């Protein structure tokens, strides 16, 4: 919509525009909240440290770990639902199309719903070595 029209009809189009705009913002924040596991991972590290230092006992650790695992699973669920990557779990290496020409890459995998992710070794695998001083 042109700027002039936008301004002219603002009393009518404005509320809708603003609602949509803020919904998009909210959606972004919610999406972030639902799919970010870094806070849970930080909590897990801290929990492990507390156990190692003897601040909590084994029983308490088990209870709190279970709660964190539940949160991780929920995040994983959301990531899968929103089509985002999930760390861990099955990895399937795509076959070289030259040696397996009858099947286009990914075709056999698509027929197997249980294999939700592919790792393509040609350019898909990086092995980094970091020998710096930090």
């Amino acid at each position, binding site marked *: 919509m042109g700027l002039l029209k936008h301004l002219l009809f603002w009393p009518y189009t404005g509320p809708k525009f603003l609602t949509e705009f803020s919904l998009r913002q909210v959606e972004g924040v919610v999406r972030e909240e639902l799919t970010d596991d870094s806070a849970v991972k930080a909590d897990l590290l801290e929990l492990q440290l507390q156990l190692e230092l003897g601040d909590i006992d084994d029983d308490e650790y088990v209870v709190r770990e279970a709660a964190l695992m539940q949160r991780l699973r929920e995040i994983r669920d959301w990531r899968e639902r929103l089509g985002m990557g999930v760390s861990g779990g099955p990895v*399937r*290496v795509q076959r070289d199309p030259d040696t397996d020409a009858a099947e286009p890459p990914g075709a056999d995998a698509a027929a197997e719903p249980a294999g939700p992710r592919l790792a393509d070794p040609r350019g898909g695998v990086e092995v*980094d070595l970091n020998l710096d001083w930090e």
Partner: protein
Amino acid sequence: MDNKSDQSPDTPSIGTSDEGKYVYCIIKLAEERDFGPIGIGEGGNRVYTVHHRDLAAIVSDTPIRIYDPTRENVLAHELVNETVMREHTVIPMSFGTIFRTRDDIIELLKSTYRAFDDVLEKMNDKIEFGLKVLWDRDKVISRLEESDEEIHRLKSEITGNAQSSTYFARMQLGRLIEAALENSAGGYVVDIHESLKPVAVASRSNKPIGDRMIMNAAYLVDRSREQEFDEAVKRLSSKYEDQIAFKYTGPWPPYNFVNIKLRLERADA
């Protein structure tokens, strides 16, 4: 949430009862080997090798599933790597890496042969040690309140006349203490780092965990210098005995120095 979240922790979040292969690490080894029933999962699965030329992946059979990073699972992963690294140089895989078939692993080894071979060469006889340094924040603060002249003065000013001490004086005290803490933590870290540098190959600083930790580092050490490194850590620990606590762990496979990034894609996308 749909019914997925009703699953018990042990139910696979995705997949079926298909057998997959859990991969622990990559080593250089031409002959097949069996490391015994020490694999991850309930059954105590046999840990064995899958080969391409002289590279071997250390694997055990597993249902295709996502393993939660529980202490039990992580320890199982580590136990295998620990066992293998007693005799071999290892490139560790990330926790939870599962391949569908033996052929897929061979494909990975084949296509990444040179990179793995090169990294194994460079990592030959190198092991990792973890060093976490912790302090008692409150104790350090009360010591600062005695030893630091300006903090001492401000502190007694505030406690001396609680009525008239301003919000700003308190704020300033807080800031001074923060800065002094940071300064003193930095001093320890630099000294520890400098003392260990001559006996290590490389180091990595990770983010400290919680508010008592001032340093969370990993050091890569040549096996031949393990004892020297050990002694250097012990010297530091007795030097700072009543000030900071050391949590010293290892030897580990070089988790912090080698990174295998497998690009994961959804097959059904």
